[in-house]
């Protein structure tokens, strides 16, 4: 019978085998030199979470500094380094690799039914590039820090006297290549390693999202790489292409930077959107609404993302003509986003919704992304952006989409696949509580920043006018609330690792292929070629009393087809 039940994982899962990817080989080197995409994914995840922690600590420091006008805990120089580091770490070390490289690496080949990604060695190499990039970034702290803002705008970045600029440029350059290789790997994997029956439109939407993301990673990141090279050459050898004192053009730098960094913001959000498609479908046990529209809209976002970069430069001295063109195109991205948003909402309609932790994260995502995306419209409109540009309004906008959507999506996905990755269940109540705390804290922190911004508080400000203080105080309180929430999440995960009950192979009742292999998956993912069905047809899931697990039973498919709707 197709019913809902919460997993009772204390019972041993019959399908779990003792030989899984975690236990397949042992020892440090077996991890460090592994070619197994699952292990690489786990290593990425650990590294990304550690970086998130570091970036979060910087966020707390800067929020603390902003508690009062003037000096609270540090000097202006230090503050500038704080937000630069916070931004750079969160963007380059955390959010860009988080979903594709960490979750994607783990999930993509299994979902696809492949044994591994196309180039396992390249995959490991890109992880080590990440490590090297992170090392350079951290080294820049020792070398004198850097205070350029995460955007490295010239000529400030080429003239600032802080010593860590070149190391961090090298670091970001290296990280860029890590990202390129991950994307390249995924495109080839999706193209060439699909098993029989896995057609493009049978692929789970997460894969479509990862595929679109990979296109952006491959095509946009090289431009960042060369831009950073030019910056390094500028600083070391005075080449002058971006330096107005030499006749160069700082606005050209901004064109280059945003040609990468605008697609980069969709590199962050599109995979999160993919995760949300999975979470909403699986946890409401309901065929995703408008599969093809969601799939196409991912690709559409990827394509449009390349031609809107100038909306970050409306006031930079960019010409009025280009401002107009870029503003117009910017709105085009709102359409595929709208399609997705409404499709997700419609998926809930007549679903069978379990309010699990991943579902809570998905709902938070919907709530926060709608706000974040809609405020993007304020920014994309030419005359309102004149007022809002470089104020806290923009800060709030991008935290709603980067933190409130991309990162929340990532954490939701982590909860979703956690039983698969670790083979352990977590404390559902605790996870849900943490999610709610984060949600409340988040809105406290960043909703006030919309007001701050539209009232005229510029961003990257160490000191501010006293009339803004009340907002800053609320915001800081929110940040600490969020910290408590994330701390709870961390405790929940650690507890699950230490003493969590064993996870069944399919705790949520998913249909896509990863739920049809053991938890944790064996070294080779699949011993037999998996059966590819409709990965959103939840009528084939059946609760199995004996193993206390959901079972995907393809025989049900036929039965249902004959019966029509079934209750």
């Amino acid at each position, binding site marked *: 019978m197709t019913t809902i039940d919460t997993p009772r994982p204390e019972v041993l899962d019959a399908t779990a085998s003792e030989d899984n990817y975690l236990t397949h080989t042992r020892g440090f080197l077996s991890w460090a030199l592994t070619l197994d995409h699952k292990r690489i994914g786990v290593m990425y995840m650990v590294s990304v979470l550690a970086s998130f922690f570091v970036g979060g600590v910087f966020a707390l420091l800067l929020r603390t500094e902003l508690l009062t006008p003037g000096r609270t805990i540090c000097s202006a120089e230090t503050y500038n380094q704080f937000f630069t580091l916070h931004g750079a770490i969160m963007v380059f070390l955390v959010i860009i690799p988080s979903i594709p490289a960490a979750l994607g690496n783990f999930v993509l080949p299994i979902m696809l039914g492949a044994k591994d990604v196309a180039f396992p060695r390249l995959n490991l190499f890109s992880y080590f590039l990440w490590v090297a990039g992170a090392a350079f970034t951290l080294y820049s702290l020792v070398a004198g820090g850097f205070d350029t803002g995460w955007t490295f705008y010239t000529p400030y970045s080429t003239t600032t006297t802080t010593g860590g600029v070149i190391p961090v440029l090298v670091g970001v350059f290296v990280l860029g290549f890590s990202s390129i290789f991950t994307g390249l*790997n995924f495109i080839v994997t999706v193209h060439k390693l699909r098993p029989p029956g896995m057609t493009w439109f049978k692929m789970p939407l997460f894969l479509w999202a990862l595929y679109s993301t990979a296109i952006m990673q491959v095509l946009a990141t090289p431009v960042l790489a060369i831009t950073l090279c030019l910056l390094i050459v500028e600083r070391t050898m005075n080449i002058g292409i971006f330096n107005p004192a030499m006749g160069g053009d700082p606005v050209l730098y901004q064109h280059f930077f945003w040609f990468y960094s605008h697609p980069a913001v969709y590199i962050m959000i599109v995979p999160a959107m993919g995760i949300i498609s999975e979470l909403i479908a699986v946890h409401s046990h309901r065929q995703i609404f408008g599969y093809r529209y969601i799939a196409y809209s991912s690709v559409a976002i990827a394509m449009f993302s390349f031609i809107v970069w100038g909306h970050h430069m409306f006031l930079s001295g960019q010409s009025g003509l280009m401002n107009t063109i870029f503003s117009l195109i910017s709105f085009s991205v709102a359409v595929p986003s709208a399609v997705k948003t409404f499709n997700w909402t419609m998926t809930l309609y007549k679903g069978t919704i379990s309010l699990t932790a991943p579902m809570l994260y998905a709902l938070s995502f919907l709530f926060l992304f709608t706000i974040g995306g809609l405020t993007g419209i304020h920014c994309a409109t030419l005359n309102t952006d004149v007022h809002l540009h470089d104020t806290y309004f923009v800060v709030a906008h991008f935290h709603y989409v980067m933190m409130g959507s991309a990162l929340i999506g990532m954490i939701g996905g982590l909860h979703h696949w956690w039983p698969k990755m670790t083979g352990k269940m977590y404390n559902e109540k605790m996870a849900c509580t943490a999610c709610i705390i984060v949600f409340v804290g988040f809105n406290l922190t960043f909703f006030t920043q919309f007001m701050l911004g539209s009232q005229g508080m510029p961003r990257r400000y160490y000191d501010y006018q006293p009339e803004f203080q009340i907002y800053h105080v609320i915001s800081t309180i929110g940040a600490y609330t969020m910290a408590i929430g994330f701390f709870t999440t961390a405790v929940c995960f650690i507890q699950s690792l230490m003493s969590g009950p064993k996870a069944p192979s399919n705790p949520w009742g998913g249909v896509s292929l990863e739920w049809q292999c053991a938890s944790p998956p064996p070294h080779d993912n699949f011993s037999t070629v998996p059966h590819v069905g409709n990965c959103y047809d939840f009528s084939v899931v059946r609760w199995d009393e004996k193993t206390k697990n959901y079972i995907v039973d393809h025989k049900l498919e036929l039965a249902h087809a004959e019966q029509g709707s079934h209750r």
Partner: protein
Amino acid sequence: MNHIAADQKSQLAGHDAHAAHGEHAKYPFLAHHFDTPAQQFDSAKLGMWLFLATEVLFFGALFVAYAVLRTRFPEVFSYASHYLDTTMGGINTAVLIVSSLTMALGVYFAQRGRKMALIICLWLTMAGAAGFLVIKYFEYSHKIHANLVWGPSFYIPPHDAVGEAEHAALAHAPAAAPVAVAAPLNPQPSAIQSIGTHPAVDASVIKAAGSGPRGLGVGAVDHDAAVTHDIIPHDLPQAHLEDAKMPPNTHMFFAIYYAMTGLHGIHVVVGMVVIGILIYRATRGDFGPNYYTPVDLVGLYWHIVDLVWIFLFPLFYLIH
């Protein structure tokens, strides 16, 4: 959609479990996660093409910088282009084309399993790369001798003690010169003021007229003055500094010239390294009709290096 269909066919063909097993026994080079050599080859090829796409964008951004600079300083480009040696550039183009040919032949011989011919072709390609770099070296050293460099040192005559010292210093200190500082404090009849008192004048007047900092405020540059390349004595170190026709910002041409040819040069060096590895592996006998993927991929890389040069050559050397 065609390729998708083809794709699926190959997938279907490849995924027959038994066949896959046999394939692995038959082809030792077949990685465990691929089912057939065709699948592996196709994957490698696609991967390489995607990498080439990143290379195209990598260079592409510099081409954009080039285009932007050329839009800003057309007179500089047509003037400074004449300091480049077309003969050397032309020879280098030929060298690269020929080395591309030998590389393509290398792939052919690898496919045919003719080991000796492959090795010879690879060596020839290597020789082409080296030849290219040698010629480039002469070009560079000639230019540096003539003080045709990027940055402020372009304006410092070398070969005197002060100049050398400044050269050294400039190479390290990031430039922090004030940009608008010397804008006159009480501009006598400044453009701004005249706009203020003659309201009919359009705002755009401030744009062109010289209200910039000292030294920046000249009117339009004399475009016609630029094209007389034949009178420039090439080999004097500061010849350009004595040329009355040299337009301002000429150093920017050399900045982008060194940036682009330098990056290209680095790619040639990398190409030599990977070709070296190929030679080693070919000698060892790794390649044959069954397995020659690395040769093919390096070939693609080498052709893209050639391709970039095909654009660099006319864009720098052949400006009228």
